[in-house]
Every structure is written in structure tokens, then in C-alpha cells.
């Protein structure tokens, strides 16, 4: 009975209208390369590698493409002690696998995980991050152990909140600790680096000051590429280009104000 009702609800819960041939093929790729015997998906799998249920919400498609072509360019086995072996996937397999993972990330799975599972991330006690799903249920409810930030607070405090609650969360890729580069460069020292960039002469972007440069980096990540195989390929930054739409102008102002505190 409940099984029948589950079937009735599957189309809506799993967005089955979005199961395109690419998604189906991506699922077969997932199986073919035995991904589940290291990773977990919906928390099911082998616990040896990060959960990928919401990975497409944390990492842009260009990043995932480059990552799957050669993981050793992104992680160092000596430092992280674990490395994904190179899988020699074809371009089509990579694209479809990402389509599958993107479909997975949109399945209504009771709001799990309760807090984003980051691949790497700076140590932030009581980080005030919640999942997009949970925010939909109760946007005002702060996660356990967190000091809520209100309109009355400093613009930089509100920016710090945006840094952790934007979707994808900025701190999924950027740490705020000096020298701790993750999937993206650390935010520590961003002001001095931006100043150098603006003065270097080979900067082609539209910005004329540090605030403008940071704002440009948020809304148009490919406008100026930061050197490094982990950050960009073929003139395209791996950073998602969605923030211009997903964040309000006010939120971007707050974010810029927060980031300019990192001299």
C-alpha cells in the first residue's frame, strides 16, 4: 500500500520529468566506474570518499569536468592521504555523469544532509550553514548553536552570513585562513592581491578599485582569471556564474563589505 503510494509520489519527489537520456546514461556511468564503492550518494555507499548528493550545488560544471579528467591536479595524495584515481572517462561520460549528479541534487530527500557536506573546508566552529532545502522549510530558523544575524547588525557581519549561506556556499571552496587554498584561493589577503592585480597593468577587467574588483569576481568570475590549474581552464573560471542571479544586490554589497576586511 505504502509502496504504491510511494510510486504515486516518486515523479514529484524525484523530479522524474527531468530524467533525460543524459541522466540515465550518467547513472550507468556512475555504476560502470563503481563510484559508490568509495563515495556515497544519498549517504549510501562506502564512506571512503565524500558524499556527492549535493556536489553540483557546491562545485560548478567546469570545475567538475576538469576534476574528473585528472583529480591529481586538485588534490595531493601526500597532504590529503586519499586521492581519486584517474578514471579515463570520455567527455560524454563526464558530461552525463554531471547531469546525473545534478538530477540527484534536486531530489527532495527530506532535507538531508542537515548541513552541507563539504569536501574540504576551513574549520569554522558553529558555522551557520544550512541546506537550501532546510531554508525553504523555515528561512528564519538558524541551525543549532548559531548566533543569528539580523538587519541591525554590521554590514560585514551580514556579509559573513552570506559567505556561508549563499548557494553554493562560498566557504565550500574558499577558506578565510592565510595559505589555506582549497578548490578556490583563500580569501585571506584578497585586498592586497586585488590591489596588486589592479596595478599590474595586465588586468583587463572593468573594475577600478578593490571593491569593484571583488564585486566583479562574484558576479562574473571569468572576467579576471586567477592563475592555477585548480581554478580555471580554457579561459573559464571554475567558480559558478550564478551568484548574480541568486544573490540580491544588497547581499552582494554585504559580501563585498565582508571580503574587503581581509587585507
Amino acid at each position: 500500500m505504502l509502496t504504491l503510494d510511494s510510486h504515486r509520489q516518486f515523479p514529484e519527489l524525484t523530479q522524474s520529468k527531468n530524467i533525460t537520456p543524459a541522466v540515465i546514461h550518467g547513472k550507468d556511468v556512475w555504476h560502470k566506474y563503481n563510484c559508490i564503492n568509495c563515495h556515497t550518494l544519498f549517504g549510501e555507499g562506502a564512506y571512503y570518499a565524500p558524499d556527492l548528493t549535493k556536489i553540483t550545488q557546491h562545485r560548478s560544471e567546469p570545475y567538475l569536468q576538469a576534476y574528473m579528467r585528472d583529480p591529481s591536479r586538485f588534490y595531493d595524495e601526500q597532504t590529503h592521504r586519499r586521492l581519486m584515481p584517474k578514471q579515463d572517462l570520455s567527455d560524454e561520460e563526464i558530461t552525463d555523469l554531471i547531469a546525473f549528479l545534478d538530477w540527484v541534487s534536486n531530489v527532495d530527500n527530506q532535507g538531508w544532509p542537515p548541513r552541507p557536506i563539504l569536501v574540504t573546508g576551513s574549520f569554522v566552529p558553529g558555522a551557520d550553514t544550512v541546506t537550501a532545502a532546510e531554508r525553504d522549510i523555515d528561512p528564519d530558523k538558524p541551525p543549532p548553536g548559531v548566533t543569528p544575524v539580523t538587519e541591525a547588525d554590521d554590514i560585514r557581519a551580514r556579509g559573513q552570513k552570506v559567505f556561508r549561506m549563499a548557494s553554493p556556499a562560498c566557504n565550500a571552496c574558499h577558506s578565510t585562513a592565510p595559505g589555506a587554498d582549497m578548490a578556490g584561493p583563500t580569501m585571506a589577503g584578497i585586498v592586497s592581491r586585488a590591489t596588486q592585480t589592479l596595478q599590474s597593468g595586465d588586468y583587463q577587467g572593468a573594475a577600478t578599485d578593490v571593491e569593484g574588483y571583488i564585486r566583479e569576481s562574484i558576479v562574473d568570475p571569468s572576467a579576471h582569471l586567477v592563475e592555477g590549474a585548480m581554478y580555471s581552464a580554457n579561459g573559464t573560471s571554475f567558480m559558478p556564474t550564478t551568484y548574480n542571479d541568486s544573490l540580491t544586490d544588497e547581499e552582494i554589497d554585504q559580501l563585498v563589505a565582508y571580503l574587503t576586511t581581509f587585507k
Partner: protein
Amino acid sequence: MRYKSQSVAYWYFAVAMVLFGLQLVFGLLSATKYLGPDPLLYILPFDVTKVIHTNLLIVWVLTGFMGATYWMVPEESRSELHSVKLAYIQLILWTLMGVTAIIGYLFRYGTGNKLLEQPLPHKLVIVVCMLIFLYNIGMTIKKSGRFTTTEGVLVLGLASSAVLFFPALLHYENYTVSIFYRWWTIHLWVEGVWMMIMGAFLAYLLIRLSGADREVMEKWLYVIVGLVFIAGILGTAHHYYWVGVPQYWLPIGGFFSALEPLALAGMAAYAYAAMRRSGLAHPNTLALHWTIGSAVFALFGAGLLGLAHTWPSVNKWTHGTLVTAMHGHAAFYGAYAMIVLAMITYALPAMTHGRREQGSSMGYWAFWLQISGMFGMTLSFATAGIGQVYLERIMGMGYLDAQLKIQVHFLMLIATASVFTIGVALFIVDFFRYAPRFQLSQEPDPELDTTSPSSAT
């Protein structure tokens, strides 16, 4: 041995022993990879060692179940097996299936669906083997005209595990739907019908070893089967957490999985009661160790450790972490590995030359080293898992950073896994160091039932 055809069980047990040994090789390899870096990254990466580790587990435990059934059914039905030849054909097919599947996994030949990775041809061979097996057992019982409750539960368990394999043969385009039905096989096997199989073996061993009253034992068995049915079937819902099914599976899963330990507590209480009531008359005390040990360890690993993280509000944080590995290792070992080892230990003196009935000191070392090793492994996974949940899920640390912080638990895992492996190695050596013998130890005596076959020699 009272029936000549029981000797097929020896070869099933021998195959099971070899596969058990191999399983540990791949288990240890997987455990060292948690520490890293991995020099075998491009030869034997974690996914390959892990898939072989879990598949060998399933294959050797099922081989043990089949061997134990071929041992038990002639005794219970007081008849030779219907066909010894079919039993050997089944063993050869089964072993070939297992070995080629594992060689295939080394080359990434498989379907990558967790625990059901076998390629389709292998799945079909599994079905054929199960059908041969059920036919052979069914005909034996039918011809003998004697069908005990213990056998009834065993056959019900075996037949259902064959039936429940069918959802595994189907193909689903929707990953969530595929997960939904995958658990019909995996969960209902592990927490439903395998449990019945375990209950049947436990009843058989307790009747034989303690001389407990068959009537009383069989009443307990009904209670256990009932509980397994009620809690086990709806308990499947705890696998439906967070995979994209309707919300109502959460309370159902929480409630019925909380009931699941009851069946195990029943089994443990039942083993204890049998032991108390009878005064332990049987000379094979080593088999008694394994039997009671299995009931107690299953209650701990499958029952209590399962309960520890099955409630949705807890599971939300522990789901997909090493906490699950903690429960998995203790549960499988206690409930299934140990009951097979108990059946082997019980049957072995009658099948080999020169073995002492009460068990060798090597056999006792094997028992205690395995128990303490597995207990240590469980604690290692538990502490690693709790650390992981706290750092990664509560504090928001990245997955890879959190794993680096809990490395000391992986060291402990490797140390305790080594103790466990020594215990298993001793068991295997003890198994093979006496040559098999296939003469009857006594004439079939249909009048006597509660005497064990070997105690009369």
C-alpha cells in the same frame, strides 16, 4: 555422521573457509587505505578491494549456509539427501560463479550497484544454484516424510532469500526507485530471511548441544519468526531515509527498526535459557561457545548498535559515516559469520579424523581472538565515526580534513583487524589440519532423536 550424504557439507565448509580467508585479505587492504597514501592506487584502488571484501562475505556466508543445511537436513529428516550429485554440481557452479565474479571485479567488470554488483550472467547462475539447492532440500524432506519446525523455518528462510533476489535482476531508470527495490533484496535478506536461517541453525544447535526440549525450542522459534516478520519487513523503511521517498517512511522506519532488536534479544535469551536448563551435557563445548557467542554478539552488533543510530533524528547526522560501518561489521559477524562457524565447529569432529570432540586449544584461541578483534574493530569504527560526525557534520569541517583528524582510529582499526585476522587464520588452520573422513560414525537410528550423532562414538 549418521548419513553418508552429509559429507557434501565438508566441501561446502572447505570452500567457505578459503573464501573467508580471502575476504580478510581484501578487508585488511581496504583498512590500510584509510591511512593512505595508497601505493596500489592504480592497481587495486579502494573501490575494488571494498567490492571484493563485501561480495566475498556474502558468497562465503551463503556457502556456509548451504553446507550447514546439507548437514542439518539429513539429520532432522532422518534420511540421505535426495541427490548428492546435484549438491556437488551446485557447489561447483557456485564456486565458479564466485571466483569469476571476483576476478571480474579486479578488472572493474560489474554493475556497481552496492552489494548487488554481480554482472547479469553471474546473477542468473546464482538463481540456478538457489533453485538446485531448494529442489534438492525440498525433495529430501518430501521423500523422508519428516518435516520439523526447525527445518520449516530454515526452508522458509532459504526459499524467501531466493525469491527476494528477483528485484535485484530488474533494471530501473530512476535511481531512487532502484534504491527502493535494492533494499527489498539486501535488507529483507539480512534482517529478514537470513535471520530466520540463523534462528533455525541456532535452534538446531541448541537442541543438539544442550539437549534442551525440542518442543520448548520450537515455541521460541515461532516467537522469533513472528518478531522478525513484524519488525524486519517494515524496518526496511530505515533504508528509505534521505533517498527521495515520501516523508512517512521516517516514523515507520524509526519505530519498526527500534523493534528489530527484540527478535535478537529473544534469541539471546533463548540461548541462555537453553544453556541454563540443560546443564550443558554435550562434549563439544567449543561449538557451544560459538553458538551462545553468536546469539550474544548478534544482539550487540545487529540489535543494540543498529538501534544506536536508527532513529531518524540521530540518523540524520550519522547517515553515510563510519558509524554505519561500525554497525555493519559487528552485525554481520555476530549474526551470520558466527552462526556458520558454530555449525562448522559442531559438525567437524564427525567429519574429520582424530579431532577431539571438545575442540582444540587452537580452536579456543581462534574464538577468543576473533571475538576480541571484532569487538576492537567495532570500537575503532565507532570512535572514528563519532569523531567524523562531530567534526564534519556538527562543526562543518570538510570531509577530507575531518578524515585526517581521525587517523588514530584507523591505526586502531588496523591493529584490531590484525588480531581478528589471526583468529580467523587459526580457525582455518584448525579446520584443515585434520583429514576429512567420510565413514559413518554410527548406523542411522530413526528412533533416537535428541542424541547427537558423534557423542555416541
